[in-house]
């Protein structure tokens, strides 16, 4: 693997000579998971597709950027002032689950077992990259907890070095507020077997064991 291949290659002489086709191809080529060949396939798909479908897609993209913004309360994406989760009164207001990204809210909602509210940090602390608490929604998290309804804060940042550091930092701020602070359990993935688990997974699974 040569160093110059590290960044996504945008060099395809057929498409980089400009013109409208080249312009659309370059946009598609920049998308995550889309290489030069896939960009080409998508471009031809758009050309062949029903024009009302493509125009509808283009308009939806424009509206996406104009109307979707962070929820005033939890910072998850929404079209309204409050997202559909924050405006749902049937949820358990004593539980607040703190995640790094809106994608994590989607993942947890898909699991379908959590009935409390969320707080999206907008990233994780990365002291070496200069990402401090001021770049995240930490202040607004503290204000929410200080309002007094929350009894338990679930720190669901990623189980990585930086995610763990972020959880440590948050728990140091939340501890004086008198709420229960928990961290998502970690360890063995469901459907795996002990035989193939590494020592860290086993250690985590043992540490997070619970009574049956």
């Amino acid at each position, binding site marked *: *693997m*040569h*160093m110059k291949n*590290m960044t996504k290659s945008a060099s395809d002489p057929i498409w980089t000579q400009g013109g409208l086709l080249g312009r659309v191809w370059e946009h598609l080529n920049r998308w*995550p*998971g889309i290489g030069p060949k896939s960009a080409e396939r998508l471009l031809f798909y758009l050309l062949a597709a029903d024009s009302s479908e493509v125009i509808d897609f283009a308009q939806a993209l424009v509206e996406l950027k104009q109307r979707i913004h962070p929820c005033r309360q939890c910072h998850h994406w929404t079209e309204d002032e409050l997202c559909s989760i924050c405006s749902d009164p049937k949820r358990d207001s004593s539980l607040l689950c703190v995640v790094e990204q809106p994608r994590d809210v989607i993942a947890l909602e898909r699991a379908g077992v959590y009935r409390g509210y969320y707080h999206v940090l907008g990233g994780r602390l990365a*002291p*070496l990259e*200069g990402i401090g608490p001021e770049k995240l929604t930490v202040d607004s998290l503290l204000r929410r907890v200080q309002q007094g309804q929350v009894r338990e804060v679930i720190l669901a940042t990623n*189980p*990585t*070095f*930086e995610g*763990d*550091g972020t959880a*440590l*930092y948050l728990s*140091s701020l939340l501890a004086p507020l008198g709420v229960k602070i928990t961290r998502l359990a970690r360890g063995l*993935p469901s459907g795996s077997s002990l035989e193939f*688990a*590494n*020592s*860290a*997974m086993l*250690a985590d699974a043992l540490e997070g064991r619970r009574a049956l």
Partner: protein
Amino acid sequence: MPLEKAHALVLRTSAFRETSCVVTLWTREFGKVRALAKGGRRLRSRFQSALDVLHLCDIVLIRKTSAQLDLLTEAHLVDRFNVLRQSLQAYYAACFILEILCACAQENDPHPQWFDTTIRTLRQLQPPHLLRTLLSWEIIALRELGMHPMLDQCVQCKKLLEVSSSSQPITWNALAGGVLCARCAMARSGQRTLQPELWHAWRCIAKQQDFEFPEATCQHLIDLLHDYWSHRLEQPLRLASYLSTAS
């Protein structure tokens, strides 16, 4: 292409394409190594969850020529240093170690003893001796890098320093790389005075003498050392402020 085994500490990972990553490793055997881990970001990859920052791993890699990335073929997690996840100060201290390693580790420049000390330090970073443990590591790191300042003799004229009374402050010049005698101090600018107890503490730790210091002395010494590091590395250290306020 030869297969090589190594002990490695993960310094950095960055995403590459959809499922792979490029890892920067500090190895006991080869110094800094940058390697491609194909499929390294998949949950069920053969690397499992070994490739995260400050994980100690046993690795197998295919070394390439200088212009190319090495190829990581195996990584087995040995230690993820759980003490770092139990105190915020330990976490910041580990981030500081990481910052120094990222700035100073070089390719094809192994430091096996410093590597072993680092692993030991990462296992021991916990209150109440956290700052003292970090200080020891920093002094060993400065030595290994050939950056340790002169403490016993004037950095300019090499005259042996006479510390007659315990209250007499010592002239310290981070830029010059050590202490100055009274005469040389007159001729230079940019110095500060070093309280004798800090000077004693630094020498004690450098000589690995078992000696208890007040927490405040350790904290002042940490600040002094971080100022010195940033002079030597010619860049401010991001973690320095975390450690001077985290205590």
